[in-house]
């Protein structure tokens, strides 16, 4: 390609402005990222403060709460706690010491298991992530599919069926769904295992191990997922019906597009935005629900850890679980926020 002189002269100017533009948008991105990070840290700090307040608002001596109330804790241990958290010093100093403990990832010690809380939680985290991840994926995919189906056939029998199904799962207590699934599929039909995460003592390896875990995963993931499937189905249907009434859908028809293309390219894409947003906000609820499901299925995750701590009134573990799940939600929200920016051009920097 031969370059004419005036074309060559033109080259530096646009590229310089391009560079400046790029630099500006990168700076904007960095600022936005910093803002998000600061917000995230603020939320974590607030959660830690809530934890601190809970310890102090609880009836009785904060030291015994920290030690685990029902444990007839040894007086020396209590005295050590009192010193380490400065419980005889002003409240603000106590808060500062508490926050310093948290910042150094010291979430206290479980008196029942005689282990640091953080270690307990980290051991159990993968199981919970597997369960909530599977449930979330199932809920999102099935929910959007059902919602889209209902919206496509709005007013017809399919729509009514989906609406009733969604309404039913929306109204059923999660733990009861779990029990009923156990009753039907484990007790009566004997198809699937009812509790635990793997066949104890079977010693499966590799693929067999994962298939085994998969069999154990089905019922808990369904239990947790069905409720949210109902939520997403209702949301998807409502959003699609709303988008279908908007002006740009009329434009699409006026362009002579087929109904199928209008549905896929114009209605569904726009309708998914609120669903994604809502799913992000709901992440915290999903993790909360996993406490119930893990309790029902004895799934060895942090939910079950919390449930056992609850039975033993092992408060450091309970508060640690609260702190960690809240942190997980914050991270998850950040991820949804980024995803949202990728989907919606109006949010781009």
């Amino acid at each position, binding site marked *: 390609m031969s370059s004419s002189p005036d074309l060559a002269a033109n080259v530096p100017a646009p590229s310089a402005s391009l560079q400046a533009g790029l630099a500006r948008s990168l700076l904007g991105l960095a600022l936005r990222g910093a803002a998000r990070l600061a917000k995230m840290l603020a939320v974590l700090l607030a959660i830690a403060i809530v934890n601190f307040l809970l310890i102090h608002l609880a009836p009785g001596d904060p030291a015994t709460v920290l030690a685990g109330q029902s444990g007839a804790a040894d007086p020396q241990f209590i005295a050590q706690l009192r010193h380490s958290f400065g419980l005889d010093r002003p409240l603000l100093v106590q808060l500062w010491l508490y926050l310093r403990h948290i910042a150094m990832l010291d979430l206290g010690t479980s008196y029942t298991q005689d282990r640091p809380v953080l270690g307990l939680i980290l051991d159990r985290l993968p199981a919970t992530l597997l369960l909530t991840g599977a449930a979330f994926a199932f809920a999102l995919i099935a929910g959007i599919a059902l919602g889209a189906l209902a919206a496509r056939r709005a007013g017809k029998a399919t729509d009514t069926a989906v609406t009733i199904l969604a309404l039913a799962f929306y109204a059923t207590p999660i733990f009861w769904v779990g029990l009923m699934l156990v009753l039907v599929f484990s007790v009566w039909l004997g198809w699937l295992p009812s509790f635990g995460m793997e066949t104890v003592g079977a010693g499966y390896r590799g693929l067999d191990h994962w298939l085994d875990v998969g069999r154990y995963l089905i019922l808990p993931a369904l239990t947790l997922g069905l409720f949210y499937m109902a939520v997403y189905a209702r949301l998807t249907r409502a959003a699609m019906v709303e988008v279908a009434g908007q002006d*740009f859908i009329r434009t699409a028809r006026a*362009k002579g597009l087929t109904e199928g293309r209008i549905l896929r390219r114009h209605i569904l894409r726009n309708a998914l935005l609120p669903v994604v947003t809502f799913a992000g906000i709901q992440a915290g609820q999903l993790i909360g629900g996993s406490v119930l499901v893990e309790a029902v299925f004895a799934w060895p995750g942090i939910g079950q850890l919390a449930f056992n701590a609850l039975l033993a009134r092992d408060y450091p573990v309970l508060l640690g679980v609260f702190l960690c799940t809240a942190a997980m939600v914050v991270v998850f929200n950040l991820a949804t926020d980024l995803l949202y920016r990728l989907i919606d051009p109006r949010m781009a920097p």
Partner: protein
Amino acid sequence: MSLLAVEHLSIALPPGGDRAHAVEDVSFTLEPGRVLCLVGESGSGKSVSAGAIMGLLPQALRPQSGTIRFEGEDLLAATPARLRSLRGARIGMVFQEPMTVLNPLMRIGDQIGEMLLAHRWAARALGPVKARIAALLEAVHLPDPGRIARAYPHALSGGQRQRVMIAMAMALEPSLLIADEPTTALDVTTQMQILRLLADLQRRRGTAVLFITHDFGVVAEIADDVAVMRHGRIVEQGTARQVLAAPAHPYTQSLIAAALHEGAPRIAAAADAAELLGVERLCKTYARAGIFTRTRARRALDSVSLSLRRGETYGLVGESGSGKSTLARSIVRLVQPEAGAIRLAGVDLRPLGRAAWKPFRKRVQMVFQDPFASLNPRMRVGEAIAAGPIAHGMARAAALARAADLLALVQLDPAAAQRFPHEFSGGQRQRIGIARALALEPELLIADEPVSALDVSVQAQILALLEDLRVRLGLTMLFITHDLRIAAQICDRVAVMRNGAIVEEGVTAQVFSHPAHAYTAALLDSVPGRNWRQGGAHG
């Protein structure tokens, strides 16, 4: 053979409406290369007619009888697939609201390209898709077509989006373009640009245009032929020249009179009256502050000064975003400017707090733009009017009795006091809004676009009422409008606003006949049907 022939078309409304048919026994024809304007007020059935041609009517509306022949083919008998292949390819359409007609999640180029793909057989003759998109965007005079094609709709202004819609509608060189109020939502200067663009494209390509509008000014600007609709029927049709010069039907005559704003000659205010309201170097900046986000400040008012004499009507004209509404809202403390002075009969109101302002509320009142949003849907009309006097200490019974009198004053039945706003039409609601403002016996009445949401014939009535009340009650009026025709009709003096500043001010006739500022001249040049108006007004 006509390009489009609509014959005896009737479309039923769902049972329970205020009339049986949306469109009744409508017939008109459109010849190739001509522009037919379908004129009517809201609810006249003009948009339904267009929808029927496109096969895009809402589910509830179904054509009952009649035929729509397009290039000889009966569209009412065509299959959905056949209609789909005609839409976009042979019949293009442009809609009213440019802000919502484009998919917000799709690039402009993709939205046009998608249509070329849907009609591959027709598009093939027009060259490669990408080049075609760029050529189309260039043809509607969009700057930097490559960049626009990659942009998402939110980055474009309303006028630019309407250009994109026109580019899309013309993409496959259809023989018929249906434009449903395509300029109504735009500012005057943008409206005129779009009208010129449409006329230019139409002439060059020989496209026939079915143009739907409520504005006879637009008709004068663009139409070859006119059909006037009312209550679902065509009351008059003919060539534009003929209908504009000698309308036969009384309804057409009243619409044209309203469009020309031929009001009764007004009684001018004394030029030497004392100042009632003085605004001095008023500034208001809207800032979106954030810790990390950069502050983007917008100057809504940039050192604005003006002075109103007792008894006069002072017009404030400008396009949307010019700051005229901000100014009006600043005067009644709905917006708090950061600098300057607002003097009412010598007292500076700007520094006053909520409580100190209260006595002045009786002296300055406001009439709002949207008759549907300006009345509380859950409050009886009488209560809404009486609430002001009650707040200023009048006994409840006396205030309610006064509300009934005020309703009579604005030519409504005093029994209306017992009813809720939704039982009234737009024009009636605006009368209620005026009654509410007058309940406190103000000296200064601020009217913020009081007729822009109303049909033309209703506009004329409300303007006449305001003028009558001004004279009878000795009001001073600050009248805000984007419509220069209205300002010319009722204002003693006008100020032209742009970007938060007044660019020109003076006696109305003087400013409009000899504009000193280029922007004023551009605004005047954009008034639709200005040549026809001059002819009509003098001849």
